[in-house]
Structures are given as C-alpha cells and as structure tokens.
C-alpha cells in the first residue's frame, strides 16, 4: 500500500500538468466571451463580470471565416480520405508481403519524414503554378496527401499487423481472391485503424500553415490557418474576435482528437511492441 503522501504528490503533479495544458485554452475562451468594454476596464482577471457571445456572431456574419472554414473542411476531408486510401493499400503491402524493394521503400518513407519541408516550398510552387494548382484546393489536397501518406502507411501497417494472417488465407482457400479477402474480411476489422488514420491526417491537414500560405494566397482559396493569420495582422486590435475565431478553429480537431485518441495510443503501442 502506498501512503497518503504519495497520492497527494501524484495528484498534485497531475494537477500541475493539467493546469499547464488547459490554462492557455481557457484563457482564449475567456477573452472570446468578454465584451469589449470590459476587456480593458476590468484588467486581468480570471472571469469577466459579464459574458457575451457577440464576438462569435460578428466573426460568423461579418468576416470571410465561414468561407475559410468550408475550404479547410474540403481540404482536410479530401486529404484524409485520399491519404487513408493510399495508406491502406501501401500498409497492407508492407504488412503482408515480403518482396524485393520492400526495405528501400520503407527507408524512402522514413527519409520523407526527416528532411526539411521548407526545402521544397519553392520547387513545389514552381511545379504547381503552371498546372493551375496554386490558389486551388485540389492543389493543396494533392500536396498534403503526399506529406501525410508516409506516416499513414506506417500507422495502417501496424494495424494490419495486429490482424491474423490466417483470416484471409482461409478466405482465399475458399476461392476468394486476395483483393476480395482484403475488402470483405480484413478492412472491416481494421475500421478502428482507419478511423485513427483518418483523424490523424485530418488534424494534420487542418493545422498546416506554411504551404497553404505559400501556395494559396487568394482569399477564395484560403484555408482556416491562413485566414486566421491574415485576420490577426489586419484586425490585430480586436482580441475578442480573434480568439472567438481561434476557438472555432479548434472545435473540429478537438472532436476528432477525442474520438481517435484511444486508437492512436493503441496503434503506437502495437508499433512499440513490434520494435
């Protein structure tokens, strides 16, 4: 049995970590619901004496944020679906086959995680511009899919590793082709893995700033991060509206995160056990 002192220390430390994790988010939320007249007159305090959601209304009605939000949803969803599709196929190959070139392919995927992405900002711009893929949501989807596929392949691969080979071998004995076995037997079992990969890629695409800034400069094709940054430099005085916009940008990723968090830890544990 452990003493009371131990548990006081244990929960005390966890409370410190939780406070550090949540305080900045709490603060942004607090400022977003503070009416403008109170923001300056009340000084720094934990909660305003009057709460209003007027900033949210202003952002939704009098700014381009609904458009940015829509663009980000299109780009992130497109990227997540495409990446997961490609990664499921690639991860299946890496998990189930041994073939010539498998090690170099894995090495190549690892290398893509290592080199500075800022290095390819300029060349990608020059490659995509003549194809009409700059200032275009399609262009961003293609670029983000390429960035996210390598890690997604590893993630999907580790989920496939967790499913016994015998299952599809039995199906193939019964006359199904491997592809049929994959579609009808293996994929349904990998649904948690697919959900985790979708969520992970969605979050990554939702957060990306630098390439979106470089490739899509027009308002019509701006994603949420670019829009928010432009908003910040343009209306840098209106903190309430900025934070309201920021809080709204958080909502979709937080929902996704809560849904997938458990599966993600699971996938990483599987990878860690495998070595």
């Amino acid at each position: 049995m452990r003493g009371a002192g131990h548990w006081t220390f244990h929960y005390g430390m966890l409370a410190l970590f939780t406070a550090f994790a949540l305080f900045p988010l709490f603060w942004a939320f607090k400022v977003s619901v503070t009416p403008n007249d109170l923001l300056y007159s009340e000084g720094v305090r934990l909660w305003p004496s009057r709460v209003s959601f007027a900033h949210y209304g202003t952002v939704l009605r009098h700014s381009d944020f609904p458009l940015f939000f829509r663009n980000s949803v299109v780009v992130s969803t497109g990227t997540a679906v495409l990446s997961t599709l490609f990664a499921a196929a690639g991860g299946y190959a890496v998990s189930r086959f041994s073939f010539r070139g498998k090690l170099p392919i894995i090495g190549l995927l690892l290398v893509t995680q290592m080199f500075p992405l800022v290095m390819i900002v300029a060349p990608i711009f020059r490659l995509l511009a003549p194809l009409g893929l700059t200032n275009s949501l399609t262009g961003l989807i293609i670029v983000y899919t390429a960035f996210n596929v390598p890690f997604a392949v590893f993630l999907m691969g580790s989920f496939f590793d967790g499913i016994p080979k015998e299952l599809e071998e039995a199906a193939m004995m019964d006359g199904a082709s491997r592809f049929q076995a994959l579609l009808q037997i293996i994929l349904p079992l990998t649904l948690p893995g697919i959900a985790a990969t979708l969520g992970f890629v969605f979050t990554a695409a939702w957060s990306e700033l630098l390439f979106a800034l470089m490739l899509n400069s027009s308002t019509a094709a701006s994603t949420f991060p670019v829009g928010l940054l432009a908003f910040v430099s343009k209306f840098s005085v209106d903190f309430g509206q900025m934070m309201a916009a920021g809080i709204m940008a958080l909502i979709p990723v937080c929902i996704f995160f809560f849904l997938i968090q458990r599966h993600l830890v699971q996938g990483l544990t599987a990878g860690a056990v495998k070595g």
Partner: protein
Amino acid sequence: MTALDLGAPAAPRLTLRRFALAAEPYLYCAPALILIAAIMLVPLVLGLSYAFRDLVLLDPASGDFIGFTHFVEVWQDDNFWNALRNTLVWTVVAVGLQFGLGLVLALLLNQPCPGRGIIQALVFLPWAVPSFLSGLNWAWMFNPVIGPLPYVFHWLGLTDRPENLLSDPAHALWGPIIAMVWWGIPFFAITLLAALQSIPKDIFEAAALDGAGAIERFRSITLPFLAPTMAITVLLRTVWIANSADLIVVMTHGGPADSTQILASYIFTQAFQRLDFGYASALAAVLLVLLLGYAMAIVLLRQTLLSRS
C-alpha cells in the same frame, strides 16, 4: 532449381499468373509511391538544383547557373550564423524540456489511479491544437493588454514592469520555446506511455521482492526498456523541431531584431517574402546536410553503445 526452370518453361497462362502475383505488392504500394515521388522527391532534387542557380521568382532575367556562389554568401551571411545559433538553442531546449516533462507525465499516467482516463484525455489535448493556433494562443498569453503572463512575471520580480516577453530581444526566443514545449509534451508522453505499458509487470514484482528500491528499479528496469523508444522519438523530434518554422513565423516573424530567427523560418522568409528561391534553397541544403550529419552521428553512437554492451 534454376536448371529445372530453364529446362521446362512454364505455360504462358501460368507465367502471367505468376507475374500478377509478383506484381501485387507493388500495385498496392504504387499510388503512395508515385505521389511521394512527384510531390516530394522531384521537388527535393529541383530544390537542390535551385541552390546552384540565381533564381528569383517574378524576375525573368534570373535563373542562371552560378555554381557555389550562394554557399559562399551563406558562409558570409551574419543572419545565417545568428539563425544557426538560435536553431541550436531552440532545438536543444525545446526537445530537452519536452522530453523531461513528457517522461515525468508518462510515469505519472502509468500508475493506475481513479480518474486516469479523463486526466489523460485532458492533458493530451494540446497535441490536438493546430501548432499555428498554439503559437497565436501563447502570443496572446504574453501580450500585456490581454494576457496574464506579463503580470505574473512582474509579480515574481522577473521584470520591472509588465511587458511583452516577445518584444525583448534578450529573452524573446523563450516565447516560441514555451509554446513548442506546451504543444509537444503530449507526443513524448503518449509514445513513452505506450512503451512503459509494454514492460512486463512481473519483472518489477521480482525486483521488488529482491529488495530493489523505487529508484533502483527505475534505473535498472524502466530505463533500459525505454531506451530504444527514447532514442527514436528524440531523434525524430529533434529533426522535426529543428525544421518547424510555423510557431516562430506566427509568434514573432523571427524578430525582434532577428533574435528569434531560426534556420527554418529564415528559409521560409527568404522564399516567401523575398521570393529568392535560389538563396532559400541553398540555406535549405545546408540545413539538410546538418540534419543528416546529426542523424548519422546518432545512429553511429547507438551502434557503438550496442556493440559495447
């Protein structure tokens, strides 16, 4: 085997079937590989070639091959050396703090206790926050008009009056570092927690029976078990943090007076604001070589340590 194959050529249908079977894994990999090649490898090679060209976007007169001129410029560029120093501080401090705090958090969360599930979900939340947003969020926290931190620092006696840490050249780099640590602790905690949970429990019990204390058990069981995961995550995170410019671009734009400019943000500024793709690529090539050197040093170090034990 070979002689047999040569002596009895397979029927055409069989060969086709065998070819299809052999091609199957490649077909599954093809979409991912083609995309990676087109969007990452081709631009990487192009980027390396830009480093040797005088390439400025929107300037039709540019584009000539100029050899190593850019690299000589890099060598003489004070901003580069300044950014390199900042990159070192930024990377070492951020990785060190993330790792240390992430390890403590993982050890805490590894002990079963009531409320662990909800605490874990809350404490991992910063990881879900887009990094540009966590940059903005922390920039607001440091802002004396709306943020609490200047008053906290003043109250602690660290500053004479409540002022913005981000506008003080001597300490501004701490702003993005704190934001990066806040954002990155969950990543280390998640991976280390996963590794901790894969340690067999009976080893601990046996050691406890033999009279090993908590510190002894940590040193001789937990650490060796965690070492491989630690090595990989620290390696990956170091490279990743050294490369990530968005927090700095969002919070300080590299200022004030370049005091927070790291190589990655300097490269981005050169490409995005000055449109000097040639010089940006030369800087990026230098960063790539430095990171490759670092990765190789780590791998070699690991080999030496492994062969010694």
